[in-house]
């Protein structure tokens, strides 16, 4: 692109967010802000049992309660009662893969499979009445033994979560690159460990919610939903309800945090309420409360790994073998995305020629597992980074040195892994400079100085300070595609619409920056619309760190087209060749004679004439639509480092300094990037030391409240956070961007473990489990 045509460049600038004035003054519309005349309210009767047969349901008393409009159970749903669709295809791309599809159901019929599973819905004039009526419903259960532990799930005498299967095995996938056993035979050092990662909650600030309105006169259904994927939800609901896509409008308004569970579609609540609204011909609202969110919003991370790593004596990895069990909960609607991500991330940023990875996915009587920020990646990174740390100790190498000896070298990209990733395509890392990123992190945390000077001094003072440094990769920006339509209006303002939903990522700003640069307008004059299927018809959603990459590049492509139109019109009207024009200040003008100009607003009117004739092939207006689908996903990477202090008498931890260096390709807006990293970091810290969903042997979730489930607060965040960037542009898209939405969360547990071991060096501690807590760590250290 000609630099001359750009007066002010927004991409890469640290500009404040376009959406914040609305959000900060309470003007933004969230699902619960939708109030419609005659609106009814829904409440769900949820199972208190993790596993039980339903012998009898009697709703007659509930129906008698004044103000109750309807009560539905599975028996009332007729043909509409169906298991949900499989959202991700089965892993047939992997030879020999086994997969048993058992997707969630709208209301439990003859048995309940997890605590919190909906059994009935009451629809009433108010939420109060609806909730009171839940107590009127009688359900007779026959409790069954609950399947809770991952290994126990596979034992031959385990109860069956799905009676029609032979066992609780949901899937079995083996992938191999090279030949691990041969590599092992040549190794000097072989380490074996069991590594365990347990569940946490996504715990978005806004719980889930749905408002539905069937307009019987217009024969149109409108659904406001806290979804991350409005368009696929619209398509699916239309199909289920026998409507055309044009009769269904799904709006994902502002959403207070997605973090993955809101990409899980066709959840019982969002399927049932549209159906009920069509029958009752009235609008219905359901807003999840926090306890429901703990029980019935999808969760993640439970895995048990048996890992073996084979190395030469100078610390080169010859091979890695990882056999693990992945907990999918009661159903598996999200296919194998999470465990496949784990398989693709357990190789980390390293050049590993021989890799054997085997996963058994199991059904348990716990809430369904679907991606939560990180989506299997933190587990994979935890496995490889931990094994490298242990190998480094064994070989007397520093954590930095062992990583440098194994990184994929910068000249080896694109690097093919010969295994299949979550998109069922071969895993290829497109670009990166891993050593540079690690070195930058080491320099920013002052690694050498700390280890040689500061740590010995502080230790002599009796302080237990530790340092850690890890690296990680993040597969991002997966296909298939997104699209966008860009229109310059008569006011000169620019409208951008795209199909993805937004949950706080700053899309209204970063997307506007891309467009403002192309069209030479003020970034505040670019209005972005996301998440309304009436505005844009095609697309998939916001997930897998793909918004900026896939939607961002679609927007870029559409903006390039509009720019071309503007130049064409400008050249004709100003009577100069296109090369002599520039777009700036909301005008197209002659670069050398800025007073010779037409504003984009005027041009928009001219481009959409009311009378006269147009040339054949003319499309009206300054508008264009375009799409982008990457060849394969871009792989970002980073290195995080931290210094922490542990109080060995309580095991309370204070993080003194935290450094995160990211390479997510072209940085659109550093301010937004920092927000993403800091937010991810807080979730990662939760996964490391604070947050754990505690299920007991009966499958009861013991800490289903924010009093007992401990979220990370600002006072637990590092005292000092410094961010650094490396930019290796992705060759896979014109902007050169890679995703970063999950990056902050991914390396934290592995980093935390390394730093803790370093701080407690005199206790000879080995951490192979996450999440920990001060209590748990204390018991680990003093168990002898």
């Amino acid at each position: 692109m000609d630099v001359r045509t750009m007066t002010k460049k927004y991409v890469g600038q640290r500009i404040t967010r376009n959406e914040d004035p609305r959000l900060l003054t309470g003007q933004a519309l969230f699902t619960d802000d939708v109030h419609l005349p005659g609106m009814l309210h829904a409440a769900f009767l949820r199972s208190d049992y993790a596993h039980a047969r339903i012998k009898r349901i009697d709703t007659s008393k509930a129906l008698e309660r004044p103000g109750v409009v309807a009560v539905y159970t599975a028996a009332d749903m007729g043909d509409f009662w169906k298991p949900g669709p499989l959202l991700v295809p089965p892993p047939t791309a992997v030879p020999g893969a086994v997969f048993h599809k058992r997707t969630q159901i709208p209301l439990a019929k003859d048995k309940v499979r997890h605590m919190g599973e909906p059994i009935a819905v009451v629809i009433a004039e108010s939420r109060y009445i609806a909730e009171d009526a839940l107590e009127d419903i009688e359900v007779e259960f026959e409790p069954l033994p609950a399947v809770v532990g991952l290994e126990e799930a596979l034992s031959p005498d385990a109860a069956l979560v799905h009676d029609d299967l032979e066992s609780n095995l949901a899937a079995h996938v083996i992938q191999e690159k090279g030949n691990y056993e041969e590599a092992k035979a040549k190794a000097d050092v072989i380490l074996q460990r069991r590594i365990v990662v347990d569940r946490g909650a996504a715990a978005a600030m806004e719980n889930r919610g749905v408002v539905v309105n069937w307009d019987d006169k217009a024969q149109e259904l409108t659904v406001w939903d806290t979804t991350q994927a409005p368009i696929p939800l619209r398509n699916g609901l239309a199909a289920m309800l026998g409507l055309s896509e044009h009769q269904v409008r799904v709006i994902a308004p502002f959403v207070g945090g997605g973090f993955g569970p809101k990409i899980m579609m066709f959840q019982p609540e969002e399927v049932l309420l549209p159906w009920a609204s069509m029958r009752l011909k009235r609008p219905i609202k359901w807003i999840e409360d926090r306890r429901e969110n703990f029980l019935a919003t999808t969760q993640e991370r439970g895995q048990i790994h048996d890992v073996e790593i084979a190395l030469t004596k100078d610390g080169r990895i010859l091979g890695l073998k990882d056999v693990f069990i992945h907990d999918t909960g009661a159903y598996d609607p999200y296919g194998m995305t999470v465990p496949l991500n784990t398989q693709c991330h357990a190789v980390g940023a390293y050049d590993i020629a021989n890799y054997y990875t085997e996963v058994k996915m199991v059904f348990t009587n716990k809430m369904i597992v679907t991606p939560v920020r990180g989506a299997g990646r933190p587990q994979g990174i935890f496995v490889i980074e931990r094994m490298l740390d242990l190998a480094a100790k064994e070989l007397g190498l520093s954590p930095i040195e062992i990583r440098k000896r194994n990184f994929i070298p910068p000249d080896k990209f694109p690097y093919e892994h010969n295994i299949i990733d979550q998109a069922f395509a071969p895993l290829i890392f497109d670009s990166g400079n891993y050593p540079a990123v690690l070195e930058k992190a080491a320099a920013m945390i002052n690694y050498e100085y700390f280890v040689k000077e500061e740590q010995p001094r502080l230790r002599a003072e009796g302080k237990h300070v530790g340092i850690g440094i890890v690296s990680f990769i993040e597969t991002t920006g997966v296909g298939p595609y997104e699209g966008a339509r860009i229109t310059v209006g008569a006011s000169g303002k620019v409208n951008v619409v795209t199909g993805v939903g937004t949950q706080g990522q700053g899309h209204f700003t970063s997307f506007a920056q891309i467009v403002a640069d192309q069209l030479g307008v003020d970034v505040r004059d670019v209005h972005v619309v996301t998440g309304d299927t009436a505005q844009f018809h095609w697309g998939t959603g916001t997930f897998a760190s793909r918004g900026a990459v896939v939607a961002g590049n679609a927007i870029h492509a559409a903006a390039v087209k509009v720019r071309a139109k503007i130049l064409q019109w400008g050249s004709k009207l100003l009577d100069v060749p296109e090369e002599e024009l520039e777009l700036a200040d909301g005008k197209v003008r002659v670069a050398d004679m800025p007073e010779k100009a037409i504003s984009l607003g005027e041009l928009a009117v001219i481009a959409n004439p009311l009378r006269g004739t147009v040339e054949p092939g003319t499309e009206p207006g300054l508008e264009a639509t375009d799409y982008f689908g990457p060849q394969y996903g871009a792989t970002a990477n980073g290195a995080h480092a931290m210094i922490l202090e542990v109080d060995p008498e309580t095991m309370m931890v204070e993080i003194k300094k935290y450094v995160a260096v990211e390479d997510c390709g072209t940085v659109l807006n550093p301010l937004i990037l920092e927000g993403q990293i800091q937010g991810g970091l807080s979730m990662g810290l939760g996964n490391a030391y604070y947050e754990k969903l505690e299920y007991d042997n009966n499958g009861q979730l013991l800490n289903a409240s924010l009093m007992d489930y401990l979220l990370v607060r600002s006072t637990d965040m590092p005292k000092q956070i410094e961010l650094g960037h490396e930019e290796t542009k992705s060759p896979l898209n014109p902007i050169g961007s890679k995703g970063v939405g999950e990056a902050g969360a991914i390396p934290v547990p592995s980093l935390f473990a390394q730093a803790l071991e370093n701080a407690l060096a005199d206790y000879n501690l080995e951490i192979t489990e996450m999440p920990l807590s001060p209590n748990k760590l204390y018991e680990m250290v003093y168990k002898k």
Partner: protein
Amino acid sequence: MHNPRPGLPEFDYVRPASLSEASRFLAEHQGEARPFMGGTDTFVRMRDGFWKEKYIVDVKRLDGMGDITFDPSTGLTIGAAVNMNRVIDSPEVQEHYPLLAEAAKTVASFQLRSRATIVGNICNASPAGDTIGACIVMGGVLKVHGLDGEREVPLTGFFVGPGKTVLKPGDIVTAIRFPVLPQGHAGRYIKLGRNALSDLAIVGVTAFAYPDDTPSGYRFKLALASVAPVPLVPEKAEEILTGKPITDETIAEAAQAAMDACNPIDDVRGSARYRKYMVRNLTRRAVTDVLNRLQ
């Protein structure tokens, strides 16, 4: 267990014109009426379905309930309705009873403390109450208005079990009174949650001492939170610290005695084992801090 469907039930809000009227109303509606101050325990318990009161009785505006008064010859009186932020900010508290401010500062957050009260913390009788230990070791006495008029109730023996006290139907605590403290006193409250701030205590240790004619040269008072069904005074540990010259060994012995005195439970927030060890470690620390402050 939790209420599977949390939500406030319906209740009537009653605001009596006088303490006698309030006491009478509470006694007449025994088991279905409850007085409240900040309501930060009351409404949470009701929402979670533990309490099903029909009447919520607002007594916080009645005579003197909102005042803090200090008299150098008789001591400090904090009205039952005074919120914790006001206690923390009070110059008299800071000067003469700093331990109370130190303990109150560990309660939740600024927002919560602008409603929560010390009397509410005491009457709620949770073993985890953060300000209770400070009130016990400084000799706090409750002023109570009941059916038979006013009386004073000391905190010793006040707590009967989790959420249970010796208060009778119709009793309303109007204030907590503290005597003038001995010269040269010092105190320390160490709260251990699962994070840096705002969690409930999984262990809390209060230590308080003043110079006295004893073998150690001090009189020591201790109280432990979250390690027994009621706020616990480890008397043996107090005796050790008072009855022997202070050395590292004495402190360790007292800390061990505190640990042995407590009987915590395992729950989702912490194991009994960890809690016991924390009592030992934090008692040692709190006593050491107090000794440093005494000098």
